[in-house]
């Protein structure tokens, strides 16, 4: 949650400013710069590689030489994990939670942002500030009473119990990012649509949604990754191992098989793979959004 919060505020802070493209050809700079970049990259990805490569070793290899290279490479750990129902259950749960959260946050967020951006009524500035104030309540602060609420609603040990709060906590960022997008749609379009007989709602579905797609995708990604990586909420809400999402799955697996380090590493690297793939697919939206490349 705090992650998405940070990212979204960053987009807000940076988004409106221009981006300076490097002119014409990019030259090879000084070797020192590459050296520093190389050091930074090494530091950043070594722990990730440690997890992935460690999964290709056996426990005896790890015990005799914890920092060694796989010799020989074993894929047994990975096939074990991929063959276990535990892993796939967590994967399916994580997917359901993330997709549900993303859809809910995007749909409700677009609707509310549309009202704030394009309707004229008394309390709209208040409504905006109200949602924006939600950023002052990170999930850490609300989790204890939230757990009680979820329990009273009978949603403990159900994926709905994490999807609904996640939607609610994703709404502030979603709305803050989307409102400028929706506001930027030219008013002439709305007039033209109105003259052609489209109602406001018709305009909403046929024009607003397609035109604000870049913003919608950005908030969708943020909600998805936030849910996929979410730890605290599932930790409070889900006790039943058959409902565990991947983060809880990793934690559970690593305490259950604490002596089987190799398998824990395999499980851990398999569980981060979807996030990494997803990230590299949409990397330009996330990093690009941060550097102000997202139009709007």
């Amino acid at each position: 949650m705090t992650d998405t919060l940070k990212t979204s505020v960053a987009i807000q802070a940076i988004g409106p400013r221009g981006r300076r493209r490097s002119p014409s050809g990019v030259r090879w700079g000084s070797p020192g710069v590459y050296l520093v970049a190389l050091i930074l990259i090494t530091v950043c990805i070594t722990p990730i590689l440690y997890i992935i490569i460690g999964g290709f070793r056996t426990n005896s290899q790890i015990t005799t030489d914890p920092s060694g290279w796989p010799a020989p490479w074993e894929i047994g750990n990975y096939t074990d994990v991929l063959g276990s129902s535990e892993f796939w259950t967590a994967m399916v749960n994580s997917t359901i939670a993330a997709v549900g959260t993303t859809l809910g946050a995007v749909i409700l967020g677009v609707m509310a942002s549309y009202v704030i951006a394009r309707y004229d009524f008394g309390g709209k500035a208040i409504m905006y500030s109200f949602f924006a104030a939600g950023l002052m309540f990170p999930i850490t602060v609300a989790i204890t009473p939230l757990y009680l609420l979820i329990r009273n609603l009978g949603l403990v040990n159900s994926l709905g119990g994490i999807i609904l709060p996640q939607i609610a906590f994703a709404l502030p960022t979603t709305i803050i990012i989307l409102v400028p997008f929706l506001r930027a749609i030219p008013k002439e379009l709305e007039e033209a649509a109105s003259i052609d007989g489209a109602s406001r709602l018709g305009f909403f579905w046929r024009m607003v949604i397609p035109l604000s797609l870049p913003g919608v995708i950005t908030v969708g990604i943020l909600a998805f990754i936030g849910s996929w990586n979410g730890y605290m909420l599932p930790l409070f809400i889900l006790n039943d191992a058959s409902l565990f999402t991947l983060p809880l799955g990793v934690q559970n697996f690593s305490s259950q098989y604490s002596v089987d380090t190799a398998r824990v590493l395999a499980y851990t690297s398999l569980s981060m793979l979807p996030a990494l793939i997803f990230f590299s697919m949409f990397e330009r939206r996330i990093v690009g959004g941060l550097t102000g490349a997202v139009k709007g």
Partner: protein
Amino acid sequence: MTESQALMSSTAPARSNRVGTDRASVPTRAPRRPDWRKRGEIALLAGPALLIFVGFVIFPVMMAAFYGFFKWNGYGWPTEFVGLDNYALMLQDDTFRAAVGHNFTIVVLSLLMQGPIAILFALLLNQKIRGRSVIRVLIFAPYVIAEVVVGTGWSLMLQDAGALNSLLEKVGLGALQNSWIADPAIAMWSLMIIITWKYIGFAVILMLAGMQSIPEELYEAAAIDGAGFWKSQWSITLPLLGPTIRIWAFLSIIGSLQLFDLVNIIWGQYIAATAGTSTMATYMYQNGHLAGSYGYGNAVAVMLFLISLVVALVYQRFVLRRDTEGALTGDSRKGRRR
């Protein structure tokens, strides 16, 4: 919360009015009906979001303030009103005070460790070099990975018979071997290294973004005046990066105060306090949720919120205010001031 929101909310009504008058100029069928229809549409569109937001964000936080005055195991309706006892108990508890201390240590160390490193790396990556986008993706990767994965991976690397100690042995630095996680003298530094590793990418990307909004002409002018690379970074980049740095610092401070995931995953419920890495949030989880004392847990939540709020307000009052002023009085002045 931050300046950007404040700015946006202040521009919201001005722009919307324009849309509203345009709407009036569009021919409508009946003067009264659309008004009701508009209200209906507003309710239909904004209603669900408002409902879920109030229900799951605002309402629980308000209930926390209420529950915090009771001694309560979380079942039924709280009846045992204890006034401010929970708060008194909390403030007298050395474990809680230690956790608050750890939180503030993390706040300060995060700023001191991540800030300079991030600015330095962003400066170097801001050069026109090949593969810049690949570099960005790679340094951003740790930020995207789940805290659980980070915690599990690092705790395996740092355990006594883990990869780090083994590596130190191999390169002949066996003397530096340590009990990285369990030793209270070192645990906090291990945590700081992991936090730096996890969040430095975010800081670098943010600083890079800030640097790219600085006009190239300033550097050209400085070069003509004979300023070298470091001189112009010091006199142009750093001052103009001010707003970015201050926003990053704000996010970092709030994040440090709320820290839970990494500590709970690596140190678990019982070791965190003795290893000197417990935070307010892990304290709340252990003494509220796991202990089943929900009145007390809610009081801790309220305290956590109040501390964050006070820090946020003080920061906004004394640090961010400059940016808001700058934004209101025009940015051009800023460039000339230095």
